């Protein structure tokens, strides 16, 4: 179907009908107020909370930086102690990366993406809310630790053996590990939401070649999160097992190796730099065409750059490890990839410059920040090419040269574009303009302050000043440079203050911002009045990359409700689901409304993580079990609801189904995406197993007699049978044989439990002791991981069984069953691969 641009003519007399529609939409989408305010599950509100909270963390980490710069202003200073200084830089890096840079991408995307796609909301609003609450709980826990002198102090990448030693690193390392693991869950939740949103919730006709470039970046970055965060989660598990239970993953005296942590951390850590950078560049890709007043030149080249950077950024991780003694050939691979990534990065810059040259540029505050961003980022990129060369890096490693380099890339590549984005999108979010005068002050203070602070650091570093020292003696040639850096830091901070003042100052008397104040071409600017909760009055069919420039009268027709979903007859929140390539409308999706359940679930799950930090095992267990129960209640009452009728009129004469299952449903895609991330974490654990093999002459060691063949192999066979029974269950359900469905589910539950138990019995019966040697420990971790997947699978099977008895799971309404079968594909692979590796590899080795 090709959506037509011309809307059907509505008779002039139906103003009253239009008013009725608006009243219903307003009532359905109305935000909760008063004491129920925090039950809101709507992208506009959650996005705003998310943005505000992550920006607050930015200011917090900025203050930590200012304390550090004050300490370093003069030699032999004693403003703070060495230990407190360690906490300052660790928390500064941690908060900036985990609590500001990544979350603000998710925040901004949740806020603006639905409008850009002309969707009423993203497909899983409660998941967004859950992610936000996870983030705020973990964030306050980690950041607050410094007020109790308990902050992590081993650097933001937590290298063992320092960070695994409870005596040297204190409780701070546990807070870091558990608090951030919890936030990583939030990031993966956001990735699921955003990927499905971009792929399945676009306006009709917004084909893949017509998406706003921002959407391309969000899609790529969502995919990167799925492959980047899970290795860190796997690393966190190993790390925490060592700290809590003394399993020796990183302890060389018992076969472990600290380098494994470095690998797992940086497999996450380097892509993360691009996870931060690409969404900010994406903001520039929206801002530049608007102010050049022309379509972007080289749309396809930007897609190349986004895809290319997304992939290449995974081949860079060991360039953080050039000095640890890897073979020179290995260094060469990472050096080569690090140089190669400069190609797509450069392409983006050239596309922006070309677009500006070809257009008639309107200079304004967002453009000022955008050009500042490009200048700073190019400088940081060039030093990046320098340190990508291993011999140069050996000289500069862990010196202030690196500090300068990374701040140039992150502040140029992430912070300045973000501020440009705030100036650009502020009227769209708040309905008022920010001040041009204050904006210029903020820019020049920040831009000059930044360069005064960080440019000298290149020289300080080349003169030998290592990073992370809390003070230095005078006369080494560092004194003046450090003082200048400190002055610059405070100048930049003044700029940030001006900016914050401009954002927060009451603007009651200021005139409302005009609709589409920058004369942009993309759909988010349709939203005129942010106080209307519905997002968009009716969903237009799209025929251009810049609909507001090219589609005549589109705004007027949207406002008149002439397009899709102009009404909410059944008083339900609805949005359109379209297909991946051509955005053909497929379904009217009922999205869930406001609820406290995601918040309650997040607090309970968060409670179990926090309790584990302090070794309150009983409290942690109770909180975790209650958390799982809360999630079950949330799912049962809020997802896969059976609509009161199979289809409805979606407007413009189109009848669309209200229910879809399998790969046609958004839930199936969410499960698929989640399990890809889960599979990556599993692959990281398997990587650990083989990593230990490569560093040992005898692996398994002579003492290890397990896990043998019988237990793992029978576990594999039985888990495989559990999976096969799920296929039987699906077939029985399709055929309408309810009895057979229930029987297959019940039998599969028994087999899944048996398979999990056999996995655990392998190392148990053969006497592997996880505290003795890393071999024993890695086998145990693998079987626990696989057995847990069987257990979660059992929970899902039980949920389906209950659904069948409750009449929720039927032949037509089988979302839950198909999603659980999909889960079991992955769970079965996990169990079988685990069993085969631990049983057969010892024979080969």
């Amino acid at each position, binding site marked *: 179907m090709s959506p037509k641009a011309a809307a059907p003519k509505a008779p002039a007399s139906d103003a009253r009908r239009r008013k009725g529609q608006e009243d219903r939409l307003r009532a359905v989408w109305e935000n909760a107020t008063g004491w129920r305010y925090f039950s809101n599950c709507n992208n506009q509100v959650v996005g705003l909370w998310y943005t505000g909270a992550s920006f607050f963390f930015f200011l917090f980490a900025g203050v930590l930086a200012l304390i550090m710069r004050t300490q370093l202003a003069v030699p032999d200073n004693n403003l703070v102690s060495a230990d407190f200084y360690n906490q300052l830089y660790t928390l500064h890096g941690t908060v900036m990366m985990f609590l500001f840079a990544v979350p603000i991408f998710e925040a901004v995307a949740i806020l603006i993406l639905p409008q850009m796609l002309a969707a009423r909301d993203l497909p899983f609003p409660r998941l967004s809310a859950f992610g936000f609450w996870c983030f705020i709980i973990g964030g306050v826990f980690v950041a607050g630790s410094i007020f109790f002198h308990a902050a992590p102090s081993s650097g933001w990448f937590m290298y063992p053996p320092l960070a695994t030693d409870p005596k040297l690193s204190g409780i701070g390392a546990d807070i870091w590990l558990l608090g951030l693991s919890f936030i990583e869950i939030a990031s993966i939740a956001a990735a699921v939401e955003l990927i499905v949103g971009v792929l399945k919730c676009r306006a009709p006709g917004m084909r*893949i*070649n017509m998406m706003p470039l921002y959407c391309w970046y969000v899609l790529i970055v969502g995919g990167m999160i799925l492959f980047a965060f899970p290795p860190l989660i796997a690393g966190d598990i190993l790390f925490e097992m060592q700290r809590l239970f003394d399993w020796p993953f990183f302890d060389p005296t018992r076969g472990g190796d600290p380098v494994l942590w470095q690998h797992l951390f940086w497999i996450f850590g380097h892509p993360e730099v691009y996870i931060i950078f690409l969404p900010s560049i994406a903001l520039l890709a929206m801002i530049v065409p608007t102010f050049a007043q022309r379509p972007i030149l080289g749309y*396809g080249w930007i*897609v*190349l750059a986004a895809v290319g950077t997304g*992939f290449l950024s*995974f*081949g860079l991780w060991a360039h953080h490890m050039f000095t640890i003694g890897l073979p020179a050939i290995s260094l060469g*691979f990472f050096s080569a990839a690090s140089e190669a990534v400069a190609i797509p990065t450069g392409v983006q810059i050239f596309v922006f410059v070309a677009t500006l040259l070809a257009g008639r540029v309107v200079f304004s505050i967002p453009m000022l920040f955008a050009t500042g961003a490009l200048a700073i980022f190019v400088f940081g990129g060039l030093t990046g090419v320098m340190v990508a060369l291993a011999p140069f890096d050996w000289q500069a490693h862990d010196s202030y040269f690196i500090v300068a380099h990374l701040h140039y890339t992150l502040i140029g590549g992430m912070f300045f574009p973000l501020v440009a984005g705030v100036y650009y999108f502020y009227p769209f979010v708040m309905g008022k303009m920010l001040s041009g005068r204050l904006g210029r002050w903020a820019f020049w203070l920040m831009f000059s302050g930044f360069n005064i602070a960080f440019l000298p650091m290149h020289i300080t570093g080349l003169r030998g000043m290592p990073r992370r020292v809390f003070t230095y003696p005078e006369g080494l040639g560092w004194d003046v440079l450090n003082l200048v850096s400190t002055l610059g830091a405070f100048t930049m901070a003044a700029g940030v203050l001006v900016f914050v003042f401009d954002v927060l100052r009451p603007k009651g008397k200021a005139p409302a911002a005009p609709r589409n104040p920058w004369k942009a071409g993309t759909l988010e600017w349709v939203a005129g009045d942010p106080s209307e909760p519905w997002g968009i009055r009716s969903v237009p069919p799209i025929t251009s990359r810049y609909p507001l420039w090219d589609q005549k009268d589109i705004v007027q027709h949207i406002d008149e409700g002439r397009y899709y979903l102009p009404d909410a007859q059944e008083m339900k929140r609805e949005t359109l689901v379209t297909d991946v390539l051509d955005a053909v409308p497929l379904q009217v999706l009922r999205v869930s409304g406001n609820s406290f359940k995601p918040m309650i679930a997040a607090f309970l799950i968060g409670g179990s993580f926090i309790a584990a930090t302090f070794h309150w095992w009983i409290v942690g267990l109770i909180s975790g079990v209650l958390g799982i129960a809360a999630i079950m209640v949330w799912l049962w009452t809020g997802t896969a609801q059976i609509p009161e009728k199979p289809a409805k009129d979606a407007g413009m004469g189109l009848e669309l189904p209200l229910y879809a299952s399998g790969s046609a449903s958004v839930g199936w895609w969410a499960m698929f995406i989640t399990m890809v991330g889960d599979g990556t974490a599993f692959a990281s654990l398997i990587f650990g197993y083989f990593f230990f093999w490569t560093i040992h002459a005898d692996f398994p060691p002579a003492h290890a007699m397990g896990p043998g063949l019988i237990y793992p192999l029978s576990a594999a066979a039985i888990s495989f049978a559990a999976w096969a029974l799920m296929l039987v269950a699906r077939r029985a359900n399709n055929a309408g044989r309810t009895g057979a469905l229930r029987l297959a589910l019940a039998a599969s539950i028994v087999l899944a439990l048996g398979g999990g138990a056999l996995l655990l019995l392998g190392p148990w019966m053969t006497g592997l002791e996880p505290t003795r040697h890393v071999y024993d420990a890695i086998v145990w971790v693998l079987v626990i991981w696989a057995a847990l997947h069987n257990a979660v699978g059992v929970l899902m099977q039980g949920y389906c069984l209950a659904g069948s008895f409750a009449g929720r799971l039927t032949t037509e309404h089988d979302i839950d069953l198909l999603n659980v079968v999909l889960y079991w594909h992955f769970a079965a692979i996990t169990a079988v691969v685990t069993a085969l590796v631990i049983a057969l590899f010892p024979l080969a080795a």
Partner: protein
Amino acid sequence: MMLWRDKANLWTLILPPTVWALHFLFCYVATAVICAKGGYMAGLRLSVGIATVLALALILASGVQAHRHWGFGSDMPPHDQATDEDRQRFLGLATLLVCALSFVSVIFVALPPFLVADCR
């Protein structure tokens, strides 16, 4: 199969960089294992060489397909019309560009075993 398709999609778009990623992983793992277990350089060079030829061939095949999807360049960008044809041409062009980047990057990554003498 992702090759010999009539219709370009997101999977064909990410095929070439996926080949790059697998090639990269192979080179890294082969070096790690061979250097940890004896450092047999000729074997390393041979295996990286074969993997590189395979990877380049796949990327080339993907590029030929992308060139076809693009319509052999008969129609120049921006490919921004709301038609099946422009969607196909856009995906073809983007994939072709991604192929070029992946091709160069595979060669980059393949060089170290041939430039570095041994496992030190």
